[in-house]
């Protein structure tokens, strides 16, 4: 501010600017002083984000260096993009990226509409108790660990003792080796994702439905609209903005995949479809110590992710909706 005003002394309202700046500066100080205790409250959180989120971002330098544990990140020599060159020739990487995208896309195609449909059905339920009880049951899988879910899925689908295969045999079919065949494994992966998320996913749509004007439904009834018509012409258009936002947000996460679900469900027989970026980075980076290479892979993934999220948020804003933030 000062530098600027010094450069243009000829301006007639310099004095005003100075006075205004001084005034606003002292006002700012006053505001900060008044809430000094709030800044103290905020400090631990800011320090936390700096240490555990921003420092690892600097740690991405490892991807460009011959990282040596004893010399540290800064002193290790540059490696002229060796990891990025190596990455292109990695035989598995192509497969890993394909698997990640495939599971994400299938998960979106089948998993995204499921909570919408369920929320519409739940919204048509009139019995308060029925609704409350079923909602409690539907939300439950969301609170269970993937370790447990994976264990239960393996038990249920076991070719010998699993209840599903027992049932198949009982109706005269051959037992199916669900977790050992690629296509079945993918089906189970997607299905288990829906199982875990469908109930919880209804919450946001049910919330959107409560904001719809009851008079719309009344007016539609007056005009002779039935249940189906009301769903099609009031409920669905009413929650459409929510649907669009969530769809965009989901598209923004297409290159990232959780660790625990694939890790809990994978086994050596299906690695051709089950190995995804998160599990690959864990295996190659931490188990085998390939820090630099996996940091490079992770960095590319994070960058694509950032681009997608920004794009998604931009799209959401463009559509006249408030974005995520």
């Amino acid at each position, binding site marked *: 501010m000062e530098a600027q005003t010094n450069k243009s002394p000829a301006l007639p309202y310099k004095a005003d600017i100075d006075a205004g700046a001084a005034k606003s500066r002292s006002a700012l100080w006053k505001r900060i002083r008044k*809430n000094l205790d709030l800044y103290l409250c905020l400090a631990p959180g800011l320090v936390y984000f700096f240490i555990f989120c921003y420092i690892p971002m600097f740690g991405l330098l490892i991807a460009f260096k011959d990282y040596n544990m004893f010399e540290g990140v800064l002193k290790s020599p540059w490696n002229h993009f060796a990891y990025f060159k190596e990455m292109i020739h990695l035989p598995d990487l192509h497969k890993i990226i394909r698997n990640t995208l495939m599971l994400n896309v299938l998960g979106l195609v089948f998993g995204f509409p499921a909570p919408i449909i369920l929320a519409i059905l739940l919204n048509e339920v009139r019995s308060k108790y029925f609704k409350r009880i079923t909602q409690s049951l539907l939300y439950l899988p969301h609170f269970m660990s993937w370790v447990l879910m994976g264990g239960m899925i393996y038990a249920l689908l076991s070719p010998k003792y699993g209840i599903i295969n027992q049932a198949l045999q009982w109706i005269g079919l051959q037992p199916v080796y669900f977790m050992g065949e690629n296509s079945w494994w993918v089906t189970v992966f997607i299905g288990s994702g829906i*199982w875990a998320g469908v109930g919880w996913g209804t919450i946001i749509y049910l919330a959107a439905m409560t904001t719809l004007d009851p008079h719309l439904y009344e007016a539609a009834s007056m005009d002779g609209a039935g249940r189906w018509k009301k769903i099609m012409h009031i409920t669905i258009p009413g929650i459409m903005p929510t649907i669009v936002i969530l769809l965009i947000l989901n598209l923004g996460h297409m290159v990232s995949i959780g660790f625990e679900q694939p890790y809990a469900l994978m086994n050596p027989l299906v690695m051709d479809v089950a190995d995804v970026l998160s599990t690959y980075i864990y295996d190659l980076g931490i188990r085998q110590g390939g820090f630099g290479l996996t940091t490079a892979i992770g960095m590319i993934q994070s960058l694509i992710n950032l681009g997608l999220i920004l794009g998604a948020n931009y799209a959401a804003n463009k559509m006249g909706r408030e974005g995520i933030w």
Partner: protein
Amino acid sequence: MAQQAETANRPMQPVRRRYSMWDVSFNIFNYAIISLIAFICIFPFVNTIANAFSSSHAIQSGKVFLWPVGIQFDAMKSVFWDDNVIRAMLVTIYVTVVGTAINMVMTILTAYPLSRRDLAGRKYFMNYMIFTMMFGGGLIPSYLLNKELGLLNTLWSIMIPGAVSAFNVIIMKSFFQNMPEELREAAIMDGCGNIRYLLRIVLPLSGAVMATIGLFYAVGHWNSYMGAVIMIDNPDLYTLQVRLRNILLLSQMDTSLEVMQQQGKLQVIEESLKAATAVFATVPILIVYPFLQKYFVKGSFLGSVKG
């Protein structure tokens, strides 16, 4: 939220009797399909509980469905006698209690100042925090950071790196923001400072959101597997999920590799042992769940998300 949806639907009943036949069949279909989905959702849990208390013969012949057949308590007993599992349970309880306490204190301390519109620089602090939700260093740099800080192989490594969730801060911040500004003005008039206002007025009024966010943090700690498996090698510090995974993995490998053909019986004993461990590891959540689920079913949580 349930109420509103109902008032939305209720008035139409008397208006059009013509649709009642269709209405009735729709209702039957709707209730049936929702019941079916809810049943599918919880069936695996019920089946697992049943398996934990069933005889090996019953499991082997596929008789166990919703309730135990040929009741036995040996599997559960052997879980209780397993020092490793009990130890893991204590470790997990410790991590959950201490970790959640750290989470809550940190989240409140971060969220409250950010909820104040008169906080100079609020926008910058928000962006500083939100950016961490969009971009990160990834697994390896975080792992190396923990190593540098000497957190590896300590329980801090699973409690500290996730101490504040930016997402939860935003939820809590929105909730605080929705409190009437007049309340604060009145308190300030009476000579109440920021901290006292937070402790005496804001927090007592935010029971629902605190319970919900606390539940999320606690369940997260209880269920977390990745952190423990990456950061901790010391078997004495294994969490329940790591132990559970090791026990479940045993027979997962067996079924996937089909090597247990001749050892069928052993397998089945393990089947109920696995189930018993799973039940043991999940009981705390099942106990807490009914008390807390009313908060998010009622939607007190949602209001804050939308705000």
